[in-house]
C-alpha cells in the first residue's frame, strides 16, 4: 500500500459519519454506536440528516466524539462509513484529509477510490451477512449491525458495553441479543484481522457523562407537558412535531392511566387539520384544562386566524413550533429558525405574541412547564419555538430536575367562592394595573357567565363598535404585553465589558458557545447574549445599548431575530451585523468564527 498521510492521534475528539439508505434499519446501528461511546463516559453529539421519505433515499448520521463536551457539529468528518452506493462519491469527498472511509467491498469499487489522502477499509459486509444469516430482511439489518462492530474495532469501543446495550434493547427477546451480537463480532473480528486497530482516532474511557442522558427535544417537551399537568393535546400529524405527541402519548399511557379501570386522565385528539387542532386547544384552555398543540411552520400558517382570536378574546393556549425549513412545504426534515416573525405577529390586525426559545432538550422540558404558566397567567397564546435540530436529535443533557413543591400557576381565575363574594363579574377590567383581567370557567355559577368573542368588545365583554370602548381594550392589551416582557425567561448573558458581542437564540447556542471559546482564546474580546423570550425584557435592551458591534447569529435567510430586535427595541440598526445560516443543516462553530472573522476583516468593528 502506498504511504498515506495519517491523522494526528486524536483520542475522544473526532467525528464519525454513517451514510445509509433510509428504511434499512441503520438508525438502530448508529444509535448503538453513539450510546456505546456515551456509556464509556465520553461526551457525544448526534445529528441525523434524514429525507422526507419512507424508504430508499439517502440518509446520514453524524456522531461527534468530544471530550470537551461541545454540543455542536465539528464541521469535519474523520471516519466515514459509506454504505450507500448512490452517495458514495460525495461521501468520499467529505472525508477530511488524513481521515478514513469504510465501505462494503462485496462489490468492487476500485474506480471510486480516487483519493490518496485518506485510508479506505473494504469490508465485505453483504457477503459476510449472506454467509452467516438467513432471509433478506435479516441480512439487510445485520449488515448495519455488522458495520457497528467494525467501527467498534477501529475506534476501540468496548464490546461489553455494546452487549449490555443490546441486552437492554432486546430484554424480552434474548435470541435477538445473540444474533445482533454475532453480527457485531463478525464485523469486529474482520476489522481486527485485516486492519491495524485501533486507529489514531479512538475512544478512551472517561467519566464525563455521569448524571447525563441522551434525549431529544420533542421527548423532553412532552415530558414537560406531562409534568406541567397538561391534560388535552390536539394536533395534526406533521414532521417534525409528531414525535412530541407520540412521546406524550407514551408517557401518559404509563403515568396517567388508572391501573384498575384503565381510565385516562388525558385526552389526545388527532384533529382533521391544524385549524381544528388549535381550536381544540383554545376550547380546552377556555374551559380550564391545560392543553397544547405541537406543530411546525405550515401548521402555524393555518392556525393564524384562531391565534388572533385567542389573543383578542384572551384565551390561553400553548403551541410548540418545531421549526423546519420553509417557505411553503420547504424541506420538511431539515432545520431552520424561520418562524420567528410569523409567530411573533401571527394573525391579522394588531397582534403580538409571547415566544420562548429553548436551546436544548433540557430547556424544552423546563420551558414546556413555563409556557403553561405564562399562557394562563397572561391569558394569551404562548409559543415554544424549538427546531428540528433540538426536537429530533438526541442531545447529551444533564438529567432534568423537578421540584415536587412546584404547582401550576393557573392565573387570575375566580373561584365559585370569589364569584359569590362579588356584586357583578366583569371580564375585561384591569383591577391590578398589569393589564391582566380576571376570568371564570364555565359551569360554576350563572353570575360567572360571560361571552367570549373575537368581535369588538368593551371592558365589560359586551359587543361594541364604539371607538373609545374598542381602544380601551386594545390599549390594555399593550399593557399586558409589557407585563409579559417582565415574565418571560430572561436572556442568558456571558460578559458585559467588551465593545463587541454576539446575540443569538435557540439551537445556535451550541455552535456559538464553542465559537466564543475559540475567539476568546485567540484574543478577541467578545460578549454574548442568548435571548430566551419575547417580548424582550429590559436586560436585552441594556445589553444592546452597551455594545458597539453586535453580531446577530441565527438560522434563517431574512435575519428575523435582527428584525425583531430592531422593531421591538431601541437598538440602532447599523450596530447589528447578521451571520445567517440557512442551508437546513445544523451550524458548526467554524461557521460562526468564519463569519465574524470575515466581518472583522472588512472593518466592521469600531
Amino acid at each position, binding site marked *: 500500500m502506498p504511504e498515506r498521510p495519517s491523522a494526528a492521534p486524536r483520542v475522544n475528539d473526532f467525528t464519525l459519519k454513517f451514510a445509509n439508505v433510509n428504511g434499512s434499519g441503520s438508525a438502530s446501528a448508529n444509535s448503538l454506536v453513539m450510546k456505546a461511546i456515551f456509556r464509556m463516559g465520553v461526551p457525544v453529539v448526534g445529528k441525523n440528516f434524514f429525507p422526507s421519505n419512507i424508504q430508499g433515499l439517502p440518509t446520514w448520521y453524524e456522531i461527534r466524539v468530544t471530550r470537551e463536551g461541545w454540543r455542536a457539529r465539528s464541521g469535519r468528518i474523520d471516519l466515514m462509513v459509506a454504505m450507500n452506493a448512490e452517495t458514495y462519491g460525495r461521501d468520499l469527498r467529505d472525508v477530511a484529509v488524513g481521515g478514513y472511509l469504510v465501505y462494503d467491498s462485496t462489490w468492487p469499487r476500485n474506480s471510486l477510490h480516487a483519493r490518496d489522502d485518506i485510508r479506505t477499509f473494504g469490508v465485505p459486509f453483504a457477503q459476510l451477512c449472506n454467509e452467516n444469516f438467513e432471509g433478506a430482511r435479516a441480512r439487510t439489518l445485520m449488515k448495519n449491525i455488522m458495520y457497528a462492530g467494525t467501527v467498534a474495532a477501529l475506534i476501540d469501543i468496548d464490546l461489553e458495553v455494546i452487549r449490555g446495550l443490546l441486552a437492554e434493547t432486546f430484554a424480552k427477546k434474548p435470541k435477538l441479543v445473540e444474533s445482533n451480537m454475532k453480527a457485531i463480532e463478525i464485523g469486529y473480528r474482520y476489522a481486527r484481522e485485516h486492519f491495524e486497530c485501533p486507529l489514531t482516532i479512538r475512544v478512551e474511557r472517561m467519566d464525563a457523562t455521569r448524571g447525563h442522558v441522551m434525549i431529544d427535544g420533542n421527548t423532553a417537551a412532552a415530558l414537560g407537558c406531562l409534568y406541567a399537568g397538561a391534560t388535552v393535546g390536539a394536533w395534526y400529524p406533521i414532521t417534525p412535531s409528531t414525535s412530541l405527541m407520540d412521546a406524550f402519548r407514551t408517557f401518559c399511557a404509563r*403515568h396517567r392511566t388508572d391501573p384498575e379501570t384503565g*381510565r385516562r*386522565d388525558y385526552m389526545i385528539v388527532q384533529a382533521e387539520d391544524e385549524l381544528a387542532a388549535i381550536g381544540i386547544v383554545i*376550547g380546552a384552555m377556555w374551559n380550564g384544562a391545560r392543553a397544547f398543540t405541537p406543530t411546525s411552520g405550515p401548521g402555524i400558517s393555518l392556525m393564524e386566524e384562531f391565534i388572533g382570536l385567542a389573543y383578542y378574546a384572551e384565551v390561553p393556549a400553548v403551541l410548540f413550533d418545531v421549526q423546519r425549513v420553509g417557505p411553503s412545504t420547504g424541506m420538511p426534515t431539515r432545520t431552520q429558525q424561520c418562524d420567528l416573525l410569523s409567530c411573533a405577529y401571527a394573525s391579522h390586525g394588531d397582534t403580538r405574541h409571547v415566544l420562548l426559545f429553548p436551546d436544548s432538550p433540557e430547556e424544552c422540558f423546563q420551558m414546556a412547564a413555563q409556557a403553561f404558566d405564562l399562557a394562563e397567567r397572561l391569558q394569551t397564546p404562548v409559543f415554544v419555538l424549538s427546531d428540528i435540530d433540538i426536537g429530533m436529535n438526541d442531545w447529551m443533557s444533564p438529567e432534568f430536575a423537578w421540584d415536587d413543591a412546584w404547582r401550576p400557576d393557573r392565573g387570575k381565575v375566580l373561584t365559585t367562592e370569589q364569584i359569590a363574594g362579588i356584586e357583578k363579574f366583569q371580564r375585561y377590567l384591569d383591577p391590578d394595573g398589569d393589564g391582566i383581567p380576571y376570568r371564570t370557567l364555565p*359551569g360554576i355559577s350563572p*353570575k360567572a357567565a360571560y361571552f367570549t368573542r373575537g368581535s369588538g368588545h368593551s371592558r365589560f365583554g359586551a359587543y361594541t363598535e364604539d371607538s373609545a370602548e374598542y381602544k380601551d381594550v386594545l390599549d390594555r392589551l399593550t399593557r399586558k404585553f409589557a407585563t409579559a416582557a417582565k415574565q418571560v425567561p430572561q436572556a442568558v448573558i456571558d460578559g458585559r465589558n467588551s465593545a463587541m458581542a454576539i446575540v443569538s437564540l435557540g439551537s445556535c447556542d451550541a455552535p456559538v458557545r464553542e465559537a466564543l471559546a475559540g475567539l476568546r482564546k485567540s484574543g478577541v474580546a467578545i460578549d454574548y447574549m442568548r435571548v430566551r423570550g419575547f417580548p424582550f425584557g429590559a436586560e436585552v435592551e441594556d445589553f444592546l445599548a452597551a455594545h458597539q458591534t453586535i453580531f446577530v447569529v441565527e438560522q434563517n435567510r431574512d435575519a428575523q431575530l435582527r428584525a425583531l430586535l430592531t422593531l421591538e427595541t431601541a437598538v440602532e440598526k447599523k450596530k447589528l451585523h447578521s451571520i445567517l445560516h440557512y442551508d437546513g443543516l445544523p451550524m458548526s462553530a467554524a461557521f460562526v468564527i468564519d463569519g465574524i472573522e470575515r466581518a472583522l476583516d472588512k472593518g466592521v468593528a469600531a
Partner: protein
Amino acid sequence: MSFIAKPRVANPGLPRNELGLNRRDYEGSMSTLCAGCGHDSVTAAIVQACFELALPPQSVVKLSGIGCSSKTTAYFVAGAHGFNAVHGRMPSIATGANAANRHLRYIGVSGDGDSLSIGVGQLAHAIRRNLDMVYILENNGVYGLTKGQFSASADVGSKSKKGEANEQQPIDPVLFSLALGASFVARSFSGDKEQLVPLIQAGLAHKGFAIIDVLSPCVTFNDHEGSTKSYAYVREHTESPVSADYIAPREEIRVQYAPGESISVPMHDGSNVLLRKLDPDYDPTDRALAAAYVQQRAMRNEYVTGLIYVDESRRDFHEQHGTSESALNVVPFERLCPGASKLAKILTAFR
C-alpha cells in the same frame, strides 16, 4: 330590530320550573336580528327547551361561529358561558371545551354558510367524533350579513332576491350527517315550535352528536317567491314521517299507541324519546332507510322533518378515548404530575 333593552323583572305569576326559575331566566340579551327572522323563533325554542328541562343555567355552554345564526347564542341562557368563535370553526372549540369538561351541556348554533361551506370540514369531523353536543343549524339558504349570496344549502333553481337562479347542487345537512354516521339527525322548521322544542330536548338528552337542521327563513334576503327556503314554501313542503316526544326521567309514558305505531328510545340520562310513526313504513333506527326516505322526498321538493334517525348505543367522544369519569379540568395536579422520583426513573431509559 329594537334598541329597547328588556327589563330584567319578571311577572311573579310566571310559571317556575323545578329549580324555581322562570322562562325569563333562560333568556339572554336582546336580539339584533331582523324582525320576523326565523332564528329568533329558534332562540325561543331553545329557551323553552332549557326552561322545561330545568337545566341549571351554568351547566350550559353556548357555542357558535360567525353569521346571523351565530349571533343568537347571546340571546338565550344569559347565565351560561358563551363562545362566539371564528367562521366555521365552532366544532373544534366545542371539541376542546368538551374534552376539558364532559359534564356540561354543549349547545352549538350555526348557520348554513358557517356549517356547509367554510366549516364543512369541522362539522364532518365533529360528527365522526360523536361529540356530545346539540348542533343546531339554522338553515336559510342565504348569506345574510353579506347581503344575500347563495349558501351551499340553496336548492337548484331556487331564486335569489335579484332573480338569479342557483345552479349548484345543494348540500343537505341531513343527508350529509346520515352519510357520515351521525348518531342523532333531526330536521325542523323555525315556525313549528311544537315539533322543535321536543327535538332540542331529545338532542340534549342524547349522548353524542345531535344535529338539528332547522329551516329558518331569512325575511330580508330569502323570503320571496321562487325561493325554496321562504316561510310560505317551507310551510307547504314539509312532511314528517315521525313525531318525537321528549319524556323526562321519572316521568311516566302515559300515551299508549298500538304496537308498531311507536318506538320508545331510552336515553342515557334516564329520559325517553317517544317516536310516533306517522308513516307506518318509516323506521328512525334504520339509517339506510332514513337516507333513502329523505332523498326520495327531496326529489319531490319535500323537506322531511322530525327525528329522522337516532342511535343511542354509539360510543361518544369520551367513551372512544377512555377518559376518566371526572372532568379533566378538575383532576388534582398531584394525580397528573408523576413527581421527581418518577422522573429519575423515566430518565434511566435515556442513559
